[in-house]
C-alpha cells in the first residue's frame, strides 16, 4: 500500500463575511492549495468536499468556478467531522491505488446563534430538548465531578486558546481575554459561560493529497492516519445525542475509538505527539478531548492544564491555532482547518505560534452523529 502526503494546503480565514458565498470561500482555499501543490487542470483525479449547511453539490459549485470539473466530486456530510470524513475517503482511495492526486476541501457559512440542527425531530425542539449548549453544559458538569475541573480551569482553557489566537491572522478573535472577562460573560448553560463556547461561523480549508512516491514542490507532510468512527451506543452524553443511555462507564467514547485506530494505523502513541489541534467547541470539550485522546490519564485533564503542558511553549501545545474558541467553527471546514494548521506547524511555517521542532501532530474533531475524526501527520 502506498503512503499519502499532503502536498498543498489553503485556507479562507474563519469569521463572518457579508456578501461572500460558500462557493467564494471554497474557491479561495482550493486555489491556494492547488498552487502550493503545483497542481492544475487535469492534475487530480477526484475531489471530496465536506459541508453540513452548504446545500446540494457544494463541491461542484466550487470546482466549476475554477474550471476544474470532470472528475468524480463527492460531497460529504458528517456534522463537525465532515472534513474528517472527506479526508478519510480521499486518503483511502490513494492508499488503494485508485488515484494518485486528490483535492479535499471543506467550506461553510453557518447560521448565527444556537445552531438549528436537522438532527433533532420537531418534538425535541418543542420540548426544549434540542438545546445543544445544554448537552455541552451537562458534559462539562460531569467533567467537573470526575476530573476535578473547576470553572477557573474552564476559563483558563479559553484564556490559553485566545492567547494562541492572537498570533493567527486567520482566526475570528485575535484578542486576548482574561479569566475575569470569561467568568463575567453571561451563563449560557451552567457551568458554561458565553466566552467558553465557540462561535459558529464561516470559512474554508483545502488540502491536496498525493501518493508519497510522486514529487511535490512544497515540503511534504506524511498523512500517517485519517480515521473516522461513529459511536458505540451507551454513553448518554456522547455526541450521538441519544434520549437515554446506559449506566455503564466502560463503553468507550467515539473520540477514544477513533484515536485508538489512528494510533494503531500510524504506529505511534500519544507520547510521541509534539502538537495537537482538538475539538474545543466549548472549554470543557478540550479538556475531555485530552482525556479521550490519551494525552493524560482519565481524570487528569485539569492537572494537565495546570502543568502548562498544553500552552505554547509547553510539552504538548494543544490548539496553537487558537482552537475553535478563537477561530470559530464552520462545520465543513473546521476539521480541515486543523489539518492546514498542523501541516504548517510541521513545515515550520507558523511564525509566532510555531511549536519548535514539531515532527508528529494530531488533529481531532467530534460532532453530532456521532462522528469522531482523528488525523495523525508526521514529517
Amino acid at each position, binding site marked *: 500500500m502506498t503512503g499519502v502526503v499532503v502536498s498543498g494546503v489553503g485556507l479562507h480565514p474563519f469569521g463572518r463575511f457579508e456578501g461572500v458565498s460558500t462557493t467564494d470561500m471554497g474557491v479561495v482555499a482550493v486555489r491556494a492549495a492547488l498552487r502550493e501543490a503545483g497542481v492544475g487542470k487535469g492534475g487530480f483525479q477526484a475531489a471530496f468536499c465536506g459541508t453540513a449547511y452548504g446545500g446540494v453539490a457544494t463541491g461542484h459549485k466550487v470546482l466549476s468556478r475554477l474550471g476544474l470539473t470532470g472528475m468524480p466530486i463527492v460531497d460529504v456530510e458528517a456534522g463537525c467531522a465532515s472534513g474528517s470524513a472527506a479526508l478519510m475517503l480521499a486518503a483511502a482511495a490513494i492508499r488503494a491505488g485508485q488515484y494518485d492526486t486528490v483535492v479535499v476541501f471543506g467550506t461553510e457559512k453557518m447560521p448565527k446563534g444556537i445552531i438549528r440542527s436537522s438532527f*433533532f425531530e420537531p418534538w425535541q425542539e418543542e*420540548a*426544549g430538548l434540542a438545546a445543544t449548549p445544554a448537552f455541552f453544559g*451537562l458534559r462539562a458538569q460531569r467533567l467537573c465531578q470526575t476530573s476535578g475541573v473547576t470553572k477557573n480551569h474552564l476559563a483558563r482553557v479559553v484564556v490559553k486558546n485566545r492567547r494562541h489566537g492572537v498570533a493567527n491572522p486567520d482566526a475570528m478573535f485575535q484578542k486576548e481575554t482574561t479569566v475575569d472577562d470569561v467568568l463575567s460573560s453571561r451563563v449560557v448553560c451552567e457551568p458554561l459561560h458565553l466566552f467558553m463556547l465557540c462561535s459558529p461561523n464561516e470559512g474554508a480549508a483545502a488540502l491536496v493529497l498525493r501518493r508519497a512516491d510522486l514529487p511535490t514542490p512544497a515540503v511534504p507532510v506524511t498523512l500517517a492516519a485519517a480515521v473516522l468512527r461513529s459511536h458505540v451506543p451507551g454513553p448518554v452524553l456522547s455526541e450521538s445525542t441519544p434520549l*437515554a443511555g446506559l449506566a455503564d462507564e466502560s463503553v468507550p467514547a467515539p473520540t477514544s475509538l477513533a484515536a485508538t485506530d489512528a494510533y494503531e494505523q500510524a504506529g505511534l502513541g500519544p507520547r510521541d505527539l509534539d502538537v495537537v489541534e482538538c475539538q474545543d467547541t466549548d472549554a470543557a470539550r478540550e479538556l475531555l478531548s485530552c482525556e479521550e485522546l490519551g494525552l493524560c490519564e482519565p481524570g487528569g485533564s485539569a492537572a494537565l492544564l495546570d502543568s502548562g503542558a498544553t500552552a505554547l511553549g509547553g510539552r504538548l501545545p494543544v490548539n496553537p491555532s487558537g482552537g475553535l474558541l478563537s477561530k470559530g467553527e464552520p462545520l465543513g471546514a473546521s476539521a480541515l482547518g486543523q489539518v492546514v494548521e498542523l501541516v504548517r506547524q510541521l513545515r515550520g511555517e507558523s511564525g509566532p505560534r510555531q511549536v519548535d521542532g514539531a515532527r508528529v501532530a494530531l488533529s481531532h474533531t467530534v460532532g453530532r452523529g456521532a462522528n469522531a475524526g482523528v488525523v495523525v501527520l508526521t514529517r
Partner: protein
Amino acid sequence: MRVMVREGLFTDTDPPALLGSCCGVCGSAHFPRADTCPYCAAEGPEPVELSRRGTLWAWTAVTASPPGYQGEVPYGIGVVELPEGLRVITRLTEGDPGALSPGQALELRVVPLHRDGDGNDVVTYAFAPVEAVAP
C-alpha cells in the same frame, strides 16, 4: 385540549410513566421504546413502563430559547439514572442549578410546555425533586 408533545413516549396518567423497552437477549433497558435493541441488535424487545423514580446524575439550565422552543426560560435539563440501569435525558422542573445536588431523588411528572396554535395545552415529561411533593 391537553396533548402530549409526542405520542408513545410517556403516559399522561396519574402517576405517569415513561414508555421504554427491555431486551430479552442482552437485558438492557431502552428509552424511547425500540423495536430493535440498540445495544445488541436483537429484534423485538419487550415493551415496559420504566421506573418513576430515579436519581440525579447531571443537570444544567437553559437560559435562552433554543430553536423551535416556545416555552418559558430558564428551564432545567438533566440526566436521571433509573434503577433499570438507564440514564435518561429529561427536562427538570427545577430551573435553578444551584437548588439541585448530585444523587438527589427525583420522580416523573407531566408538565405544561406551551399553548399551540389550535389552543391545545402541550405537555411533556419532566423529573421533579421528590422533596418538592406536597405532603
